[in-house]
């Protein structure tokens, strides 16, 4: 049996909330997966904070850190227990500015110390942390923050960039800003810059290098760069045979009908990459494009450190919010939301064998569309298990959560911490017991491998 848990992260104290919880991301302490952070943002002001769970996602609290207004964000958790939170906010200048914050007490954090130079005019920061075991303690936290840098050429360029820090736990960490676009002189790279590290020092970063754009579509290359020394050498170790420049073009002339939408969701934000923890030569990638009649997610892989890439191993039409992760057995996890009969189906799929072509399929949620709900979501593997977060309309109807059938412990199927009716009519309830209008919440999920010992909990949903 695979055990699946789905939890609405809004705590009971915020039962009157009707905010759109936008851009959910997730970070897990790999040494203690009971500790999880889900970050998202709501309508400003006073929206700077993140959700924290101390019991593997069963209960959640919202921690506010500093006053101000928060924009895009993501967090990374190290095995040392440090939380690195990368967040764009700057209420003083109104210019989105990357701040890298750190805490060893994520459960009670207030205003957090900043450890990197603020980077103004950035978009979509994406944090990845890898704790590297050193011969002599302490271990070192490698921190990689991908983002788009708009600070050059009066904002007319957008440069895929990674901030690299090889010892983020140091009292005064040193960051190196590394632009990874090696071709265009006035680059306009896509929104997603996604780093992923392996324990042997290999670091891949996937990004989109736009070649042209009009009012109704973008033509881009899907590019992967690699650094074989923890990112210290400038990401020049993987070149393309066409021009011998750094950055292997996995696909070229990729058409994406940005800014068209799918179920109210704007296209063009579905790039994700994952490396096999057993072998850094094996790397999977997914993106979405309009090569077919419908916007389609494509999963491909390389078995030779990014030098050559497969054809499509899996395609999913009418889907977005793609995320990839690979567990300790080399099993690939793939999350996405697919528009089916006017509803968003949140799927989580895992490879069934080494071909990369056979996948199971767990439908975590099936909910009405709700306009723009996020650009990205994220999945992470810890040992054999997968943990992730997705945005969805929060009507507490058990029919909306097929993978977690209703039980006496969870009459809503998914676990709702906020007040909700326990029988039809299914509705959210405010602190006064009256109905609250549905909105979009961040839903945590965990898909536990068949062979993983079940932690003590009464939250089991089962999937054959």
């Amino acid at each position: 049996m695979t055990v699946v848990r789905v939890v609405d992260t809004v705590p009971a104290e915020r039962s009157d909330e009707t905010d759109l919880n936008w851009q959910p991301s997730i970070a897990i302490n790999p040494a203690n997966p009971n500790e999880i952070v889900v970050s998202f943002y709501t309508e400003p002001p006073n929206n700077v904070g993140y959700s924290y769970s101390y019991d593997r996602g069963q209960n959640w609290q919202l921690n506010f850190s500093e006053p101000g207004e928060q924009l895009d964000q993501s967090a990374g958790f190290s095995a040392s227990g440090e939380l690195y939170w990368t967040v764009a906010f700057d209420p003083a200048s109104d210019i989105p500015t990357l701040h890298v914050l750190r805490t060893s007490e994520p459960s009670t954090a207030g205003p957090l110390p900043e450890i990197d130079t603020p980077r103004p005019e950035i978009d979509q920061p994406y944090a990845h942390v890898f704790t590297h075991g050193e011969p002599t303690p302490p271990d070192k936290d490698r921190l990689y923050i991908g983002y788009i840098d708009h600070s050059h050429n009066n904002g007319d360029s957008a440069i895929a960039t990674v901030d690299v820090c090889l010892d983020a736990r140091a009292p005064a960490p040193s960051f190196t800003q590394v632009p990874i676009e090696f071709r265009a002189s006035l680059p306009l790279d896509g929104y997603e810059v996604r780093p992923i590290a392996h324990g042997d020092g290999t670091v891949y970063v996937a990004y989109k290098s736009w070649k042209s754009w009009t009012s109704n579509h973008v033509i881009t290359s899907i590019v992967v760069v690699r650094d074989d020394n923890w990112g210290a050498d400038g990401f020049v170790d993987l070149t393309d045979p066409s021009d011998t420049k750094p950055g292997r073009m996995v696909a070229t002339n990729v058409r994406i009908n940005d800014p068209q939408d799918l179920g109210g969701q704007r296209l063009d934000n579905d790039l994700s990459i994952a490396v096999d923890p057993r072998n850094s030569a094996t790397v999977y990638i997914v993106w979405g494009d309009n090569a077919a009649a419908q916007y389609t997610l494509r999963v491909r892989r390389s078995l030779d450190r990014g030098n050559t890439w497969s054809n499509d191993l899996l395609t999913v039409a009418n889907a977005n919010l793609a995320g990839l992760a690979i567990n300790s057995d080399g099993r690939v996890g793939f999350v996405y939301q697919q528009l089916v009969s006017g509803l968003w189906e949140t799927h989580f799929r895992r490879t069934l064998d080494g071909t990369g072509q056979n996948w199971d399929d767990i439908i975590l949620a099936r909910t009405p569309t709700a306009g723009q709900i996020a650009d990205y979501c994220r999945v992470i593997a810890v040992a054999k298990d997968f943990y992730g977060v997705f945005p969805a309309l929060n009507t507490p109807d058990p029919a909306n959560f097929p993978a977690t059938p209703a039980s006496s412990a969870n009459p809503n199927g998914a676990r709702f911490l906020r007040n909700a009716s326990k029988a039809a009519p299914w509705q959210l309830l405010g602190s006064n017991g009256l109905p609250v209008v549905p909105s979009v919440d961040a839903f945590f999920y965990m898909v536990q491998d068949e062979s993983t010992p079940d932690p003590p909990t009464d939250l089991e949903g089962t999937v054959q």
Partner: protein
Amino acid sequence: MRDAAVPDQPEIQKLVQDSNLIFSGTVVEMGASSVANLAPRDNFAVVWVDRPLSSDPALGDLRRRKVTVELLDREELQPDQKMIFFTLNWIQGKGIAAREIAHMETQHEDEVAAEVARMPERHLAERLADSILVVVADVAETNPTPFDVRWRNAPQWATATLRNVEGLQGQPPDDMVVLFPTSARPMWARAPRLKGGQRGIFLLHRPPDWPPLPDLGPDLSSAVFTVLDPADVQPASQRSLIEKMLRERSAR
């Protein structure tokens, strides 16, 4: 300002501005915590909320609920004391915790409540002070600008042209364009959306340093303004209030 005997209004005003959770309450226990995942500390006070004065609507009605307050100075409070607490949100989940900015005697409760009630008007005054022009006008038409793909969070500006323009502050130029965001993203969700035929009072501001402005064409000679804050568009029925506020400001 802590628990001074007689706080003046500017002090109360600043405390209200700086806080996002304000309530009067009774200290239940010192050095304790009512939040499951927050261990007790010496500088904590568990406070029973008697009267919420300003709070996040997501919390609902806070009356008769407990809040753990991280105090600036634990020596200043004792159990059973009643105080007004000015705080910042901290933890919400299996209890509520907040960080103290200040506290004061409950005899000032009505003054604080009145100041909280004045916050929208004070915000309007700030927007008026920051505006270049204040006009009464009709929106003649609105038009989208080319979609800006550069920033995922771009505001996706639209232009509005105004007619029947009457200046309440400043001299309106003959030709001007007002930009407003159309993006539904949370960072722009509160911005006013203008519609053709709409009549109102518009607090027009200089374009901000960010986000980048759209390409409005090489021949544009119009003066460009923006409306970004909900207070920047007021119904015509607010005219007397706005004129009064403008007079008061110019008299200073």
